[in-house]
């Protein structure tokens, strides 16, 4: 299976990249393989952020780019204005298909690794993310769109949900590499995707996608699910617990 994939890849690459600049060393392939130390980021009661280690190997020397991308959703960006002396939300733009989380790690300087067109096409880094306006925000000026989008990036970076700077992919020797990603405590749940790219001579020659699940487990998951599914019963239980606790406290204190 592996050899079949490898040979197919070699043929494809030979076919597409037999250009003068391309360094083709006979049968050497451009494969990249990577794995996560854990495919689940489990949010339990003691969760205070989590580190995920990605490790892998390349066939032949090259640079590595790793992207961790969370599920997409609509994001409302609101702008405050001074209205009668107080700062109040006065304007909003809704972006759709915005990843809730976005982190990047590279083995070198991204700008030297790949040209701008590639960075844009593969959305390498938060600043290269494609922006889509939702239907209710269509028709705003480009300037306004940029202003609000930059605000979104700023806010996401401040919350640690988007990478401010690319983290380092560390090579151990020439072919083995590792990258550490930190998931902050405010991480949204969902299915994340980890993209691993191998870059040679300013070209992305190989890639791999691995899923990563961020989910609540144990009591956390049970409470969360119950609150969503049986919200009315949840409310009643919350009140009963409070009543019981209040009564209990007064009983304890009367005896003293």
């Amino acid at each position: 299976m592996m050899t079949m994939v490898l040979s197919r890849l070699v043929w494809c690459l030979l076919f597409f990249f037999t250009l003068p600049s391309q360094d083709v060393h006979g049968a050497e392939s451009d494969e990249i393989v990577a794995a996560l130390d854990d495919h689940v980021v489990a949010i339990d009661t003691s969760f205070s952020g989590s580190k995920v280690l990605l490790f892998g190997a390349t066939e032949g020397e090259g640079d590595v780019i790793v992207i961790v991308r969370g599920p997409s959703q609509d994001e409302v960006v609101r702008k405050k204005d001074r209205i009668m002396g107080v700062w109040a939300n006065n304007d909003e733009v809704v972006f759709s298909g915005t990843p809730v989380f976005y982190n990047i790690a590279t083995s070198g300087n991204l700008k030297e690794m790949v040209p701008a067109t590639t960075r844009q096409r593969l959305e390498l880094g938060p600043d290269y993310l494609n922006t889509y306006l939702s239907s209710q925000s269509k028709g705003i000026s480009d300037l306004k769109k940029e202003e609000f989008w930059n605000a979104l990036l700023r806010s996401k970076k401040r919350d640690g949900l988007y990478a401010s700077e690319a983290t380092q992919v560390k090579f151990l020797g020439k072919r083995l590499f590792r990258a550490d990603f930190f998931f902050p405590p405010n991480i949204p749940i969902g299915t994340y995707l980890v993209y691993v790219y191998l870059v040679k001579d300013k070209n992305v020659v190989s890639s791999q996608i691995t899923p990563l699940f961020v989910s609540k487990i144990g009591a956390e998951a049970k409470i969360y699910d119950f609150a969503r599914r049986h919200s009315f019963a949840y409310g009643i239980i919350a009140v009963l617990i409070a009543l019981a606790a209040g009564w209990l406290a007064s009983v304890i204190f009367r005896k003293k």
Partner: protein
Amino acid sequence: MNIYLPIAEISVNMFLLLGMGGVVGFLSGMFGVGGGFMMTPLLIFIGVPPTVAVATGANQIVASSVSGVIAHTRRKNVDFKMGLMLLIGGVVGSTSGVWLFSALKALGQIDLVIKLSYVLFLSVIGSLMFVESARALWRKRRGFNTSGTAHKRKDHSGWQHKLPFKMRFRRSKLYISALLPLGVGFVVGILVAIMGVGGGFIMVPAMIYLLGMPTSVVIGTSLFQIIFVTANVTILQAATNQTVDIVLTLLLLLGGVIGAQFGARAGMKLQGEQLRVLLALMVLGVCVKLGFDLMLIPDDLFSLGSDGGA
């Protein structure tokens, strides 16, 4: 030791929450206010989303009010008939309030409304209480009678005594229109839903100055009706907005119920006027802080919808 809150979706130090519950519980027991007007801003300050802070605050007040009301019932400081009237108004008001809360949340204005409501109500009530109680303290020191009885007599000729549906409230020694407690309950009910408070800081002055109730039964009676109104808000917020965090509630009330017991004892040792001066100063302090925050230029003019615009 950090704990991850399932609904608020943040990780917070457990002892910070216990401590906050204890301090606010102490004040709650001492002054007979739910303490929500301190708790909600504190929760927002440590990073709990405002919508979760408001709904969870209401749930926590249920517990601290129960232990408070039991302590006051033993001393026969609860006017149940008056409490029932306030309660009927409160349930209707808080139900409308939760509906209003959801509508404002969708508009992105809930945070501003929460904070403006705080500034408005806290400043008016804080100043009124401060002036009145400071004056009473002053008179007492100079050897005059307390203003309490004179105040009540004057009120008998007011507009509130011309309203229909008069009822007798034995424990409060009052004969007033049922519309008054119903109306007070309704207005406070709306505030419970929107501000995540028990409403005691409005209820207590309204009972003293508007209804003319004796100070001794005011605290117990307000706590009594607060239990039911905050319970109503908890259930409705959980059902419509899913913003009640049971784990957060438990931690806050663990500290809260204990603090409330000590607070109720401390409150008995202080005189009524001193108590009111203290409460007034606290109310004004929170108000000034919130007001300044609204007027200062925010660090970032932009905010994400999920942040709630804080």
